[in-house]
């Protein structure tokens, strides 16, 4: 499968970088990771060969093309750290939740109620731990 080949290749690139780095360390420090990476090379070669064979045989090609619209929740999840960084936990999480619930077509009443519930949870956490208020709100004029 194409995706599998790309995934294993990315891991191999990272492993190769780590192998290169491990040569810089003293023998005792570099030996264990080097042995692990060598095993990973061996295993990934076997996985890749198998994957290419499967592909040539015409089987198991992934057909689940995900439409752009369906990816929206995942994009929102991956944007959440940025929202938290900019707006802090209170507002970042609130924006995330409103967008996600509206995407799933929840009514405004339910959306606001659920968001308030999450905000309450965040507030309870903030009583015990210092949660940042975000870059935008921490800027002084």
């Amino acid at each position, binding site marked *: 499968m194409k995706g599998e080949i790309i995934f294993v290749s990315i891991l191999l690139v990272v492993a190769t970088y780590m192998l290169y780095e491990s040569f810089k360390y003293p023998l005792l420090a570099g030996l264990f990771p080097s042995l692990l990476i060598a095993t990973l090379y061996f295993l990934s070669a076997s996985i890749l060969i198998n994957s290419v064979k499967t592909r040539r045989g015409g089987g198991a090609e992934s057909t689940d093309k995900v439409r752009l619209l*369906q990816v929206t929740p995942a994009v929102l999840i991956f944007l959440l750290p940025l929202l938290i960084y900019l707006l802090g936990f209170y507002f970042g999480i609130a924006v995330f939740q409103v967008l996600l619930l509206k995407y799933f077509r929840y009514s405004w009443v339910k959306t606001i109620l659920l968001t308030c519930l999450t905000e309450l949870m965040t507030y309870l956490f903030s009583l015990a731990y210092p949660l940042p208020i975000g870059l935008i709100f921490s800027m002084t004029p």
Partner: protein
Amino acid sequence: MTFPLFPEYLFSLDIYFYLLLGVLWFYVFGILPLVGTLQGLVILIPLVYRLDIPQAFALLLGGVAGMWLAESTASILLRIPGGPVTVPLIMDGFELTRRGRAGLALGAAASSTLVGGIISPLFCMFLLSIVLLVLRFLGPAEVLLIVLWGLITSAVTLSEKDRRKGIFSAFLGLLLSTIGFSYASQVPRFLFGTYELWEGIPMIPFFMGVLVMPEFVRYLVRGEKYVVKTEYLHLTGGFFKDFLKGFRETFKSIRVLLQSIVIGIIVGIMPGAGLATSSFLGYSQASLTTKRKERLGEGNLDGVIGPQAAIAAGFPGDLFPTVTFAVPGSASMAIILGLLMIKGLTPGPHMLARQASLVYYMYWIIMIGCVIGTLLSILLLPLIAKIIKVQVTTWAPILIALIFISTYIDRFSFFDLLLLLIFTLLGYAMEKYGFSTALLVIGYVLGDLIETQAMLVYQLYGLTFLLSSSTLILVVILTLVTVLSLRAMSGKKGEGS
């Protein structure tokens, strides 16, 4: 050497408060679709590791031990298994519900859970006493061999579809564990230009990203909705009479009950075999030994008793190799092992020899948790349909927010939120392409221990340790145990399927 069978922690009242909290927490996770024990454990970790060790274990181990009836209830009443563990219960359990005999199935499940959950920890404590006597014969080389054996056995048993991918996942986990300052060689390694990785990859974003988040991402991207059919759900009138009858019926199938408990303990102790295997084996064995007139799959009560007793007995067994030899047999146990390490304990023979009372305490709390959790689950039965009917899209955003907050408060670092996303991508891709995230976690948790032990053994004996007689005997025993049990398990699985 002392045998502190009744640890003092058991007499402290706050333990029971945390135990009750844990039972309620895992009750909800046991019922809700999409999440289960593993997710419940991971999300709790950042919140519990500020607690004392006994309190943390009361919350986690007691809570998990108390959730089995709740998880099975969803399978029996609504045909919605909380995870692969309770799938066998659907066959006869839901069949009984369809016939209006849900009480009978739940009563039998409750008594099987109680018996399995009491006998198994007692047996494991007895086994611990024997292991404590054997420990003096184990040196670092033997411990290393046992840990490696556990890892390889887990890799083989947890990756039935493609063993190469299973072993690849375990080795990738081991490689990730080498990131950060190595205390064994006193050198910082693979920091990728940031000092945030000085102490290695932090456990919380790693566990959350690899084990919890991919499930949410996949589900939310698919945007499906669970439709819960509750037409057979009538918990009134004859239900409670049936429940008591089912409770008593378990003791009429004493052979099925006891054999399932033995299966649960043995399979639980085998690294990587997991509770799902116990449950399926319990079911297949029940099909061979049942004396009831109904056939299995057509509402035979032994089809409920077998898997349920095996599940309840399997969890204490699963903990056994984790605490005795630092060999976690599943992702959940890898998390427990990680928690022990966060708390500054070194699981394995050393901990068992020096802190035996803590290990005994863990088994007592599992037993008490099972009893309290089962009784509470019985009381909360009417609530179950209400909880399960709440759509995933309603509670998933709240849990995602909780995951982000928990990850942040671990080290108060935004970098950890980025790590969370990176590991979410890794976990998502691994699951999509058939790699094992459970093995990745097991490898990651064991990596440091394996490297330290290997270095110690190398410095003490060089490579000659492989030729010592005790090591050779251990290698032969472990190989035989692995080959025989793998053969037996694959044979039984074939029969079960």
